[in-house]
């Protein structure tokens, strides 16, 4: 009992630290205002159930909103994790958008050719990793300006994916292929049964009387979405946890951090800085590849017109990890924030709750990114991020 309250109070104080400590006055005010607005919204919805506030809360707490949030998080979260590794090692990978695009197309193409979404996912990862390898060589070996090289990666993919799509499918939009199944659809022997089994909770509460919960995990209000998501969503949870562990608990993670902060220190400690940076950038290619392929395979089609179906998610991912202070878990939560805004926006449109025009509603995530960047842009970049490293041997 006391340990439970202790844990609760500790996590509360840690949340407080994360939100407020080390922030500027302006940032604290904004964070506080955001919290107050959230409380006010919930309060208004509880006490005035007929108002627009209540409608909004209904949208926010709908299980489909969480489902959409998780689904939309996948490409952003994977790209953000990849971006963290690259940038922590000293290579700013602004080409994440391009990696997502190339993986999205290749994911569809490989699925189409092999007939298996899993081979498709793998194909997407391979394509993204190859493009990341090109980027790595250009930045690490040939000391290219990382920002410009990153832009080039984006623009190459932005040209190549619709080009290839037109070659193969005769148009910028691909044919439809199979999509990634959800957990219940996959028919996994134990899991599928577990999440859909009827659960019987009968709790005798002193005040409200008998609470009789008769449902399955999937049927749970709001959180039910957690139990019926696609495999990419679970992969994302695993990737977030593994990334955090890799960065903070393994020797490789330390080398990555040292390579971005003071590469000379790492070099003189006998670790090859170039090799660490190659590994980190390739890892960012692998992670972004999973995200991009999962994005396309979630829909079963590649859309290559305009900014393609990736539509800025790679750049939002960069802001997500900056906002999350290069911490995979922080980056994950800010991803949830951006994806949540997008999901809310989608649900609002679907339900036609507010009479806000579609094109304007669509700008919400982008405007949110600018606001977040303006308020929290002063993050501490790894000291050596952006600089190519030369051991100093002049030959």
């Amino acid at each position, binding site marked *: 009992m006391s340990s439970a309250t202790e844990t609760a109070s500790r996590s509360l104080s840690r949340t407080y630290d994360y939100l407020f400590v080390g922030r500027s006055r302006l940032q604290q005010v904004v964070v506080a205002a955001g919290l107050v607005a959230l409380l006010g919204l919930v309060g208004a919805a509880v006490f005035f159930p007929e108002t627009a506030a209540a409608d909004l809360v209904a949208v926010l707490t709908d299980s489909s909103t969480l489902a959409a949030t998780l689904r939309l998080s996948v490409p952003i979260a994977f790209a953000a994790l990849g971006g963290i590794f690259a940038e922590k090692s000293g290579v700013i990978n602004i080409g994440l958008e391009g990696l997502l695009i190339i993986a999205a197309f290749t994911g569809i193409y490989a699925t189409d050719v092999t007939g298996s979404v899993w081979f498709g996912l793998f194909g997407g990862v391979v394509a993204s990793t190859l493009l990341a390898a090109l980027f790595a060589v250009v930045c690490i070996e040939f000391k290219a300006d990382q920002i*410009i090289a990153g832009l080039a990666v984006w623009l190459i993919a932005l040209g190549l994916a619709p*080009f290839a799509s037109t070659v193969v499918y005769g148009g910028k939009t691909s044919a439809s292929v199979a999509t990634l199944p959800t957990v219940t659809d996959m028919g996994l022997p134990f899991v599928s049964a577990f999440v859909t089994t009827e659960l019987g909770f009968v709790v005798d509460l002193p005040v409200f009387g008998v609470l009789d919960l008769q449902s399955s995990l999937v049927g749970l209000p709001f959180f039910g979405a957690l139990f019926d998501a696609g495999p990419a969503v679970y992969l994302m949870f695993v990737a977030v946890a593994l990334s955090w562990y890799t960065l903070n608990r393994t020797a490789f993670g330390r080398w990555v951090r040292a390579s971005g902060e003071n590469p000379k220190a790492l070099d003189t400690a006998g670790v090859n800085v170039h090799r660490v940076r190659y590994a980190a950038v390739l890892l960012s290619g692998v992670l972004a590849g999973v995200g991009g392929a999962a994005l396309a395979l979630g829909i079963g089609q590649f859309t290559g017109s305009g900014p393609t179906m990736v539509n800025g998610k790679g750049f939002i991912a960069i802001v997500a990890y900056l906002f999350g202070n290069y911490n995979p878990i922080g980056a994950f939560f800010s991803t949830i924030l951006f994806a949540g805004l997008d999901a809310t926006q989608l649900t609002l449109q679907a339900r036609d709750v507010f009479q806000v025009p579609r*094109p304007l509603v669509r700008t919400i995530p982008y405007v949110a990114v600018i606001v977040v960047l303006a308020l929290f842009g002063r993050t501490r970049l790894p000291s050596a991020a952006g600089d190519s490293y030369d051991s100093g041997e002049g030959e």
Partner: protein
Amino acid sequence: MSASDRARSAFERIVTASGVERLLISVSALVLSILIGGVIVLAAGRMADCGTAAYRLALPGSFVTQFTGGSAVVAMGFCYDPIAVYDLLFLGAFGDVLGDPTNGQFATTLAETTVLAFAGVAVAVAFRAGVFNIGAQGQLVVGALTTAVTLLFVAPLFGGLGVLGTVVVLPLGLLLGALGGGLYGALPGALKAYADANEVITTIMLNFVATSVALWLVNDSSRFKDPDSFSNQTVPLPEFSQFPSVFFRARDDFSVVALAVGVLTLVGVWYLLTRTSFGYDLRTSGIQPDAAEYGGVDADRTVVASMALSGALAGIGGAVYVLMMLGNFQTGVPTYGFDGITVSILAGNNPLGVGFAALLFGVLKSGSIVVQVGSDVPPELVGVLRGLIILFVAMPEFFRMAGRRFDSLLPEREEPQGAVATDGGVSDE
């Protein structure tokens, strides 16, 4: 220093001079991109389905057998012929320029060149100030929109004045474009200067915002949509408010006047950068912000000013796009802003070089239409080339290494730190 020493050092300086070296690098990058583009066309030719091969690669027997010892001839068929594609791309853009200098295809090439020159010089100004303006696309859209929408109300006031109306309204239209684009560029500039918000991200986000807001403004006739049209566009502007088509046919949507304005703008920006105090401040803060600060340059103000100028130039590009090519605003503005990045980088961010790079890209854009009509190769090939060129120009070290290896024509530039060893000094203490 003997005369021969002097001559040699002068020669070395010419070769190492950033201008010449940059030109060599740009040309090499271009050639390399075209080669790789050719490989991509071949590879795409293997992916596509076609009845007969458009291109056959056959290696003669002796050449093959010396490696494999196997079959005498190896031949492979491809659906697309890269040489034919490049022929269409580069030569197609000129049309029958010798026989008919005002032919439609060449007019398109020059029209594209004009808009690209504005987009390119916009990006170049920001780059020279050390700011990555990826938002030229958004600024161009906002400039185009501002011009198209405002002139709808202003132009009719000058309706009866004939040529005089053009003389008043046309510059006003360009000014409006500059204003719209300038403000839209100053915004991320201010965010960078005063809130440390990375301009690469903010400008990209603002591109998305600009596209969406523009769509909203022209997708309903209660706002600015042309009620007589099915597509999302504004009411056409009166003919006299647009660029007159001198020499060229009116339907080709190109005006020599606009091209002249473009050339003058490039020269003006070049003069501004190299001959004025403002240009000195801007370049200094772009190359070495610490030294600029030491020299009394207000870094924050320079960032905002250069972004505003950059946005204004892109905005004029948008206005020219409306007043020369479209006659109104339509959604789905081509990606001039992104091409502008490549144009600028290829030109080494030199305003005069931008002219040549813009012409090259004008050829590519116009040629891609010829490719689309004349072959099965998707015109998106130009988008791929755009990215490849940026990538290769971004890695001068690659060409320096290659140069050293094959010719040693491009000597290594000595790092600032390298000078310490040769210090003419005695002691630090």
